[in-house]
C-alpha cells in the first residue's frame, strides 16, 4: 500500500536535518547538527530480553535497563517513533529491547527479536568481517592490488596513480575515490542492478593517491563486498548468509532488497517528521548493497557484537580466529595521533586512548550506531526507524558517559609554547570535508558543510558552521586544539605556514582541507544572491516599462478617438 509521501518544512531544525542527512549519507552517520525537539516521557511498550550481568561496568542489569529506559523515554515519540537497542557484555546479551512503534500506521510495537531495522552503514562491518575471513583463509590479502581479484570481472580500478588500491585502503576509506555521497539509492526495487554492472557504470574518479587521506566511500565498501563475492565465486548476499548470518544464528538478517517475504521478522517502517508527529514513508533501496543494505534485529546485532567481543566466536561457533579479530581491531590507518583513527572497517570513537571502536549507519529514513569497547567487552547497538537531527549516537554517548567507558572530559591546559596567536592566525580559514562530493549537483552539500576557523583571544580558536554551531578550542600542543568540556580535538598539519589538512576527532570519516577563496560560502552566497536579485529586478523593470508603454499607448488612442468623435 502506498504510504504518504514525505514532506519537509523550512524551519531551522529541518534545515539542520537536511544537512546532517546529506552529509550523513556520505559518511552514513556523522555528528548530528541541530537540536533535539522537546522531550516528553514515553511509555516503552516493548518486551525486553535480559540475561545475567557479566563482569565489567554493567554489574546490575536492572539498573542498566532502567537507565536505558529513561534515556529512550526522552526520545520516543519526539525524536523517533521507534527504536531498538542491544547491549552485550562479553559473550552475553545483557539487554535487548524495543521501544516505541515499528509502524505508526499499524501501531505495532518494536520487538528486539522480531522487528527488523535497516541499519545502513553499520552493515559495512559485516562486509569487512567477511574480508577478514578471506584473509584468514588465505583467499584475500590486505595489501594486494584489488584488480588481482577482478580478473574475471568487467570491474577494474584504473591505474591513475603508481600505487594500487588494496583491501586495506578500502577498509580504511583511504583508496582515494571521489565521493559521490549517493550509495545508489533507488525508489523502485526493479531499478536495482547487479553489483558488477553498478560498480562498472558508477565508478568514481580516483582523486587522491591511496593511503594518504581518509575520504569515506560507499563505492569502496561496495567494491569490497564484490571482491569478497568474486574471491569465493558466489554472490555477496549468499556468502554473508552462509558464512556469517547462519553460523551466528542471525536468522532475521539479510542484505537482500526488498526484504524477502519469507524472511523471519517484520521490517519496521521508515518514518519522517510531520509537525509534532511522524508519518510512515516509502522505503528506498541501495544499489551499493555491501555498503548499507543490511536489515537486522537488535538480537541479531547482539550476536554479531558478541562474535567480535568473543575473539571471533559465539559459544561453540567461530567465524574468525582470535588473531584475526585482533588484527581487525588494530589500527590500519592513522590520520593523526591526537584524533580518532581507523581500525579495519571500524573507526575509533571519543577519546583517542579509550580504545572504543564503532560505526554509524543511515539510510534515508533509518539511522543506527554500533559501538564496541573491546577492553571492557561491551557492545552497544541502537537503531531508529527515522532520521532525526539527533542521531542514535546520542544514546550511545549517554551510556558511555554514564558507565564511564572513556575518561571524563578535562579542562584543556593551554600550551606554554609561545606564538599561539600566530599559529591561530595561520590555521584560520574555511575548510571542506574530503568525503563530500567535489563534482555534480550534490556538491552543494559540500558548500553547506564548510567549517570556518577563526582566531580567538589568547591563542584560542573558534569554529562555526553555517547552521550556527560554534565552539571554542584551546591549544594543547602546537597546532593541536582541544574542546572545552568535551573530547573534541582539532589537529592541523601545517607545512611552511600553510595548512595541508585539519583532522577533527568527531569526523573520522574524512579530513578537512582548506577551501580556495572563490569557493567560500560568502563568495558563493554573495554571487548567487546578487545574480538572482539582479535578474529579478530586470524582469520587474521590463514588466513595469512594458506596462507603462501600453498605458501610454492606450491613453494616446483614447485621446485620438475622443478627438475624432468631436
Amino acid at each position, binding site marked *: 500500500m502506498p504510504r504518504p*509521501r*514525505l*514532506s*519537509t*518544512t*523550512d524551519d531551522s531544525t529541518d534545515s539542520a536535518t*537536511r544537512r546532517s*542527512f*546529506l552529509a550523513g*549519507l556520505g559518511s552514513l552517520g556523522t555528528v548530528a547538527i541541530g537540536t533535539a525537539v522537546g522531550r516528553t516521557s514515553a511509555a516503552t511498550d516493548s518486551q525486553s530480553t535480559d540475561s545475567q550481568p557479566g563482569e565489567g561496568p554493567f554489574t546490575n542489569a536492572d539498573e542498566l535497563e532502567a537507565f536505558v529506559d529513561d534515556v529512550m523515554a526522552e526520545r520516543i515519540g519526539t525524536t523517533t517513533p521507534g527504536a531498538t537497542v542491544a547491549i552485550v557484555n562479553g559473550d552475553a546479551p545483557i539487554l535487548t529491547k524495543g521501544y516505541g512503534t515499528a509502524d505508526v500506521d499499524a501501531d505495532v510495537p518494536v520487538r528486539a527479536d522480531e522487528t527488523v531495522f535497516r541499519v545502513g552503514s553499520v552493515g559495512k562491518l559485516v562486509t569487512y568481517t567477511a574480508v577478514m575471513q578471506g584473509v584468514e583463509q588465505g583467499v584475500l590479502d590486505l595489501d594486494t592490488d584489488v584488480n588481482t581479484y577482478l580478473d574475471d570481472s568487467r570491474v577494474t580500478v584504473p591505474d591513475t596513480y603508481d600505487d594500487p588500491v588494496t583491501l586495506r585502503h578500502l577498509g580504511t576509506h583511504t583508496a582515494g575515490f571521489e565521493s559521490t*555521497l*549517493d550509495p545508489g*539509492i*533507488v*525508489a523502485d526495487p526493479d531499478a536495482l542492478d547487479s553489483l558488477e554492472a553498478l560498480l562498472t557504470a558508477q565508478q568514481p574518479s580516483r582523486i587522491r593517491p591511496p593511503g594518504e587521506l581518509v575520504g569515506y566511500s560507499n563505492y569502496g565498501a561496495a567494491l569490497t563486498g564484490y571482491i569478497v563475492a568474486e574471491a569465493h565465486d558466489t554472490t555477496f548476499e549468499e556468502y554473508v548468509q552462509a558464512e556469517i548470518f547462519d553460523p551466528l544464528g542471525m536468522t532475521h538478517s539479510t542484505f537482500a532488497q526488498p526484504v524477502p517475504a519469507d524472511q523471519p521478522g517484520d521490517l519496521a517502517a521508515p518514518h*519522517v517528521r510531520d509537525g509534532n508527529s511522524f508519518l510512515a514513508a516509502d522505503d*528506498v533501496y541501495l544499489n551499493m548493497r555491501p555498503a548499507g543494505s543490511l536489515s537486522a534485529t537488535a538480537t541479531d546485532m547482539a550476536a554479531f557484537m558478541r562474535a567480535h567481543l568473543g575473539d571471533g566466536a559465539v559459544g561453540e561457533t567461530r567465524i574468525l580466529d582470535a588473531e584475526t579479530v585482533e588484527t581487525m581491531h588494530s589500527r590500519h590507518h592513522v590520520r593523526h595521533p591526537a584524533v580518532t583513527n581507523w581500525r579495519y572497517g571500524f573507526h575509533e570513537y571519543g577519546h583517542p586512548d579509550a580504545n572504543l571502536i564503532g560505526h554509524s549507519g543511515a539510510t*534515508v529514513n533509518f539511522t543506527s550506531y554500533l559501538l564496541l569497547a573491546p577492553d571492557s567487552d561491551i557492545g552497544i547497538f541502537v537503531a531508529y526507524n527515522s532520521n532525526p537531527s539527533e542521531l542514535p549516537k546520542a544514546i550511545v554517548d549517554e551510556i558511555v558517559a554514564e558507565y564511564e567507558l572513556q575518561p571524563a572530559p578535562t579542562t584543556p591546559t593551554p600550551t606554554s609554547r609561545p606564538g599561539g596567536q600566530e599559529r591561530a592566525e595561520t590555521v584560520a580559514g574555511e575548510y571542506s570535508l574530503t568525503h563530500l*562530493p*567535489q*563534482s*555534480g*549537483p*550534490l*556538491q*552543494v552539500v559540500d*558548500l553547506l558543510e564548510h567549517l570556518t576557523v577563526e582566531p580567538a583571544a589568547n591563542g584560542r580558536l573558534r569554529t562555526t558552521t553555517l547552521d550556527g554551531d560554534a565552539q571554542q578550542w584551546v591549544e594543547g600542543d602546537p597546532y593541536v586544539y582541544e574542546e572545552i568540556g568535551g573530547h573534541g580535538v582539532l589537529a592541523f598539519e601545517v607545512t611552511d605556514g600553510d595548512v595541508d589538512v585539519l583532522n577533527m576527532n568527531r569526523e573520522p570519516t574524512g579530513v578537512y582541507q582548506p577551501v580556495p577563496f*572563490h*569557493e567560500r560560502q560568502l563568495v*558563493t552566497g554573495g*554571487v*548567487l544572491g*546578487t*545574480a*538572482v536579485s*539582479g*535578474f*529579478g529586478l*530586470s*524582469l520587474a*523593470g*521590463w514588466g513595469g516599462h512594458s506596462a507603462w508603454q501600453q498605458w501610454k499607448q492606450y491613453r494616446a488612442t483614447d485621446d485620438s478617438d475622443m478627438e475624432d468623435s468631436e
Partner: protein
Amino acid sequence: MTDQHISQQRTEQQHEYDDRSGFIHGVKHRLTSAPWLARAASVGLSSISIGFVVLFMFVLETGGDVTLFTQPLPMQLALALPHLIAVLTLVTTAGDLLAWWYRYWSLPARIHQTALALLGLAFCWQLSTLGFLAV
C-alpha cells in the same frame, strides 16, 4: 451564391492570408534581428535563472532530500536548466558585444544588457563551482 458573396469571401481570405503572412514575416524579421535576439536571450536568462532556483528549492521542499538521489522528473527538469542558462548567458554576452559595436538601443539599455551579461557569467561561474554544470 451571389457574386457579392464570392467577392466578400475572397476579401476575407485575402485578409486572413495577409494576417498570416504578416505574422510569419514578423517572426522571420525578429528571428533574424540581432537586437531582438539579444534582448530575448537576456529576458530568457533572467526568467530561467529565477525559475531554476524556484524549481530546485520547490522540488527539495516538497519531495525531500532524497530527490537529489532518486531524481524524479521535476528534479531532472531542474537540473537540466543550468545548461540552458549557460547557453543563454553566451547568447546574451554575444548580443551585448554586438550592441556596443553596432550601437543597438539607448545607452542605458546597453548598460542594462551588459549588467545582465555579467550577472549571467557570475551565475554560471557559481553554478559550475557547485557542480550544476557538470557534463
